[in-house]
């Protein structure tokens, strides 16, 4: 019987034939964590093992609260710096790198056929490069640091086919929000999701990362895009190790297949307070907004900043507008291309790469009654630090248009 991508990767890891539903214990290739590495190191010490089993597999990237907004975060960072030194962890990226998922990918850890886990729910992002990557909990990371392995249930796979012709005003984010609106936030609970179809093959790595990042909001264990020339070009000068590309077999068994024609969809919005609370933008035109946010692990890449720069060029923003490149490499490119100057001239705040206000820790927390229109991936109540505030989610194009208009507006007006 044919195998899906995830069945193949777990078969390879388990060194025996495995299919969906089986529980196995295997060794991941890379284990990613961020600021929560401090708490993980404390749990690790409780296990009573002296050394991390495979320090070369551990990747730690500080991004959630950088630079430290308060003493407690500074202590966390300090503990992590001491721990990586003590354990000879060389894959450590301090506060001057960027958001973990972007840095991990840029730095060539996200590779086809790798099994990657991370103590962050959006670890699903690396599926854009053909890896099997899933979010796990802190204790799980501590136990892999100690033993090198973890238990996994091999998931069933949902195939999502994206067909049609992509209108110029539609981005990968609009597609992701549209899909989540249709299949809901538990539509892929415990499942692997494979994104296929013409639309996906024509997408850049940055766009594929949006789909796989947002797979977490469908409840998926992982997202996956089949590697192709776009993938191989991207990793050519980045790959940290050798890799083996794995594909689903033609006769693999899928849990279900869902097909979407995206030729006629509108720019998408997720209304408060769930990501599956979908609305086409027309429905919300004129809704006043207090703060615009362009960035995060979902939409802080160069292509997103380019879209924002095109819209903001020559305009002044009407509301507080925060722009956060996902990494310092992206920041440098954005300077070279003149985007940063456009943002400053428009009156936007360009903040240092990191997670910023997305999780309500700092740099753009809201007051009660306020509304943010954001390119992030979550709009749960209290997410941005205030339970009486509202978060709307959309594409960088829609958020940039809103920054100029001061209210939600159809970005097609600005093209």
């Amino acid at each position, binding site marked *: 019987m044919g195998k899906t991508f995830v069945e193949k990767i777990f078969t390879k890891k388990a060194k025996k034939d495995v299919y969906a539903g089986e*529980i196995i*214990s295997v060794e991941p290739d890379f284990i990613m964590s961020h*600021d*929560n590495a*401090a*708490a993980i190191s404390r*749990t690790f010490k*409780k*296990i*009573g*093992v002296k050394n991390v089993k495979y320090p070369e597999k551990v990747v730690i990237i500080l991004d*959630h*609260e950088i630079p430290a907004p308060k003493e*407690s*975060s500074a*202590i*966390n960072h300090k503990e992590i710096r001491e721990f990586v030194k003590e354990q000879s962890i060389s894959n450590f990226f301090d506060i001057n790198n960027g958001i973990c998922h972007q840095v991990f990918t840029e730095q060539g850890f996200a590779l086809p056929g790798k099994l990657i886990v991370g*103590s*962050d*729910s959006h*670890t699903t992002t690396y599926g854009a490069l053909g890896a099997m990557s899933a*979010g*796990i*909990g*802190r*204790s*799980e990371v*501590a*136990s892999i640091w*100690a*033993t090198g392995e973890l*238990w996994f*249930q091999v998931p069933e796979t949902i195939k999502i086919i994206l067909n049609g012709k992509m209108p110029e005003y539609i981005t990968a984010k609009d597609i992701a929000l549209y899909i989540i609106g249709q299949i809901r*936030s*538990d539509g892929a*609970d*415990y499942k692997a999701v494979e994104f296929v179809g013409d639309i996906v093959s024509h997408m850049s790595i940055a766009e594929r990362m949006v789909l796989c990042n947002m797979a977490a909001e469908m*409840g*998926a*264990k992982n997202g996956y895009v089949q590697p192709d020339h776009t993938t191989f070009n991207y990793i050519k000068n980045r790959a940290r190790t050798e890799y083996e590309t794995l594909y689903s077999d033609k006769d693999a068994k899928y849990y279900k297949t869902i097909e979407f024609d995206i030729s006629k969809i509108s720019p998408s919005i997720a209304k408060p307070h*769930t990501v599956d609370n979908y609305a086409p933008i027309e429905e919300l035109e004129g809704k006043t907004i207090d703060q615009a946010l362009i960035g995060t692990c979902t939409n802080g890449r160069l292509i997103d900043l380019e879209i924002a720069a095109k819209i903001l060029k020559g305009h002044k923003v009407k509301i507080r507008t925060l722009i956060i490149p996902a990494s310092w490499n992206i920041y440098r490119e954005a300077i070279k291309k003149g985007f940063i100057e456009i943002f400053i001239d428009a009156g936007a705040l360009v903040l240092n790469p990191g997670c910023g206000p997305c*999780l*309500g*820790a700092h740099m753009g927390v809201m007051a009660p009654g306020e509304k943010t229109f954001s390119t992030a991936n*979550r709009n*749960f*109540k*209290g*997410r941005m*630090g205030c*339970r009486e505030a509202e978060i709307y989610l959309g594409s960088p194009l829609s958020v940039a248009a809103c920054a100029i208009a001061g209210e939600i507006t159809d970005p097609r007006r600005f093209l």
Partner: protein
Amino acid sequence: MIKKFSGRVWKYGDNVNTDVIFPGKYTYQKMEPEEMAKHALEDLDPGFASKVKEGDIIVAGKNFGMGSSREQAAIAIKYSGIKVIIAKSFARIYFRNAINAGMPAIKSPEAVDAIENGDEITIDMKNGKIITKNNEFTFPAYPKTVMEILESNGLINFIKNKIKKQEDLCQKEQ
């Protein structure tokens, strides 16, 4: 893990997410589990943490614990006194975090429909039964690995025991 226990039910709806269970603004603060418990369900039911009693049970709709991978969302609830969560379904990472914290997460849509807020119910882990006032519902046994983790009261203890066993074995061989 206790094999059989009874408790009072706190009932909630669908899609209870990790941000309302344990707000993101606390996730990078150094906290002991007992302190995390004081913030359990803070943005869903602000009265919960002060009123919940040891041995109580949460019963919820589908997709309980969707969102972040933050483990505190499971630990805060466990240390608030909750013994078990029954839901129509669980978000994947939450399910793992609950098991890894040594707190059973039981999927039973039928039982959820039949149970009301404030009901007294009994869970029989050994025989896979949820016993309500008028009904009895069964749930399938956990896979072996999951059961072993629960019986060790969580993943960290499970790993500790496993390492200790290996060390004992090595010593015997020497």
